[in-house]
């Protein structure tokens, strides 16, 4: 089945999560092409071509990732190429732009897919619902199918020894909508890895009372482990951490090698975002907190006492 994999980038580099979309697409078809849009894409095209043949629309009109413009180009190219399946990794970019493109292409879309099987030629997709308390199995009616997959659910393929071809495509950019303008991006501050891309995530919950405490304890432990920081929704609501750190149903879905849940009770909304991590360890004052049911290792204790001990232990003192 002719498949296009939309490759997300931040204007200067591909995002590492793209690998999951390529991995998923490859499991289902040999006819997989990467698809990049934007401006000044040369370096990223080369990077993408390590994994699949690439088609690319490189145009100043696409300098900013604005949904109505990008979706129109995605739909135009998908139609021209006769794409039957369009795949991306589930991120806020995909939720905004790829969903709009799906709307232009008929609306047969499944988001946040975590598994699949093919039965009698029919593709069955599994996706979480109800904050991950339920896994639903569904099929899509009609073509093209638009599918976003969770970054943690599929493995990226190994890069090929010789790169695949890069094919520039000209899209009609003179008739793109002009009613949306990107004015500014207030990027994240700080040098820590992104919570969706880190090998270790240290996450803090309600037990932390102030931003300073969070930074000193959760941030301090994260830096000791070269990890990303995350948080539960409670700290976002309380204004203690920015929303970009939120892990859960309404935030980000992560599946690192190690997830350290500090002072997080384990509400189902939070579990939805982290329960597929390889190893989960939790510290919570309440030994009956639900987070322990979803953990491999647990320590009942006060994070204000235990986290400094963890940092000291890791520093060998």
């Amino acid at each position, binding site marked *: 089945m002719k498949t296009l994999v939309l490759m997300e980038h931040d204007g200067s580099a591909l995002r590492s999560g793209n690998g999951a979309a390529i991995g998923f697409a490859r499991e289902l078809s040999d006819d997989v092409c990467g698809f990049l849009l934007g401006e000044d894409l040369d370096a990223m095209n080369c990077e993408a071509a390590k994994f699949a043949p690439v088609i690319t629309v490189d145009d100043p009109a696409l300098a900013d990732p604005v*949904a109505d413009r990008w*979706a129109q180009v995605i739909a135009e190219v998908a139609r021209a190429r006769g794409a039957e399946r369009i795949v991306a990794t589930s991120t*806020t970019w995909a*939720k*905004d732009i790829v*969903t*709009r493109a*799906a*709307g*232009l292409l*008929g*609306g*047969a*879309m499944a*988001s946040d897919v975590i598994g699949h099987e093919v039965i009698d030629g029919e593709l069955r997709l599994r996706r*979480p*619902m*109800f*904050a*991950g308390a*339920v*896994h*639903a*199995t*569904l*099929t*899509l009616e*009609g073509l093209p199918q638009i599918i976003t997959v969770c970054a943690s659910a599929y493995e990226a393929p190994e890069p090929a020894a010789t790169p695949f071809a890069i094919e520039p495509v000209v899209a009609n950019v003179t008739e793109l909508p002009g*009613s*949306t*303008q*990107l004015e*500014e*991006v*207030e990027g*994240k501050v700080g040098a820590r890895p992104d919570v*969706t891309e880190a090998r*270790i995530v240290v996450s803090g919950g309600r037990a932390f009372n102030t931003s300073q405490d969070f930074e000193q304890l959760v941030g301090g432990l994260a830096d000791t*482990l070269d990890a990303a920081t995350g948080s539960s929704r409670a700290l*976002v*609501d309380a204004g203690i951490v920015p*929303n*970009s750190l939120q892990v859960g*149903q*309404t935030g980000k879905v992560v599946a690192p090698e*190690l997830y350290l849940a500090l002072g997080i009770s384990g509400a*189902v909304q939070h579990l939805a975002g982290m329960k597929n991590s390889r*190893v989960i*360890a939790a*510290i919570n004052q309440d030994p009956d907190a639900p987070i322990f*049911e*979803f*953990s*491999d*290792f*647990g*320590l009942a204790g006060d994070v204000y006492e235990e986290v400094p*001990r*963890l940092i000291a*232990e890791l520093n060998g003192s």
Partner: protein
Amino acid sequence: MKILVPCKRVPDPDQKLRLNAEATDVDSTALTYILNPFDAIAVEEALCIRETTHPDAEIIAVSVAPAEGEDDLRTALAMGADRALLVEHDAQLDSWNVARLLAAVVEREQPALVIMGKQAVDDDANQTGQFLAVQLGWSQATFASQVEFTETGLRVHRETDLGIEIIHVSLPAVVTADLRLNEPRYASLPSILKAKKKPTEYTTAEELGVKPEPRVRLLSMELVHSQRNCEMVTSARELILKLRETEVIKG
């Protein structure tokens, strides 16, 4: 100015779910339902707009639901919406078809702005707002954490993986609400009583001229349980030791 706020009826997330006998849906008989929390944020934002920059704004809450969906529209009315419209529909609908029904309501009501939750906490699809925008040919501003009116449209702060993105969209537009946009008010008892007198209209897909065309066919559901057995340790030192043994922490 008219503001349309789509309101979805969802199971209260703070309850244990069971599936129906065929495992094709959750067992709705024992569930209590609420207004989707993200849609409550959207209602609140519409109220804020009326209270600050647009005192003439008329706020219309619309739901696609079985007859019981009226309860959740009452919540929106009690918060302060002016009137409600229930598109009565019993069967499951995918996001595409909900968007088609909402688009038909938009054609009828001609609002300048649609504000709705970025996702519903039952199917977690995060699609309907984008589908509605594209069906109408309108601009979209998803995952809004701040909305302000300008002379020509809206300036919206969007919550993205890469940080806050500030965009400007002209009207008409669809805005989808993220968590930090505001904190929805609780309806007071007098406003709950007053809401009972506010007008609610009823319609159907047929009346709106929309015949559902499924895009997603739900085959089955399963409940997810934890597979882990938690080993409790008694000290920070022991925890580090265990994590080193599993080789997730090196050195």
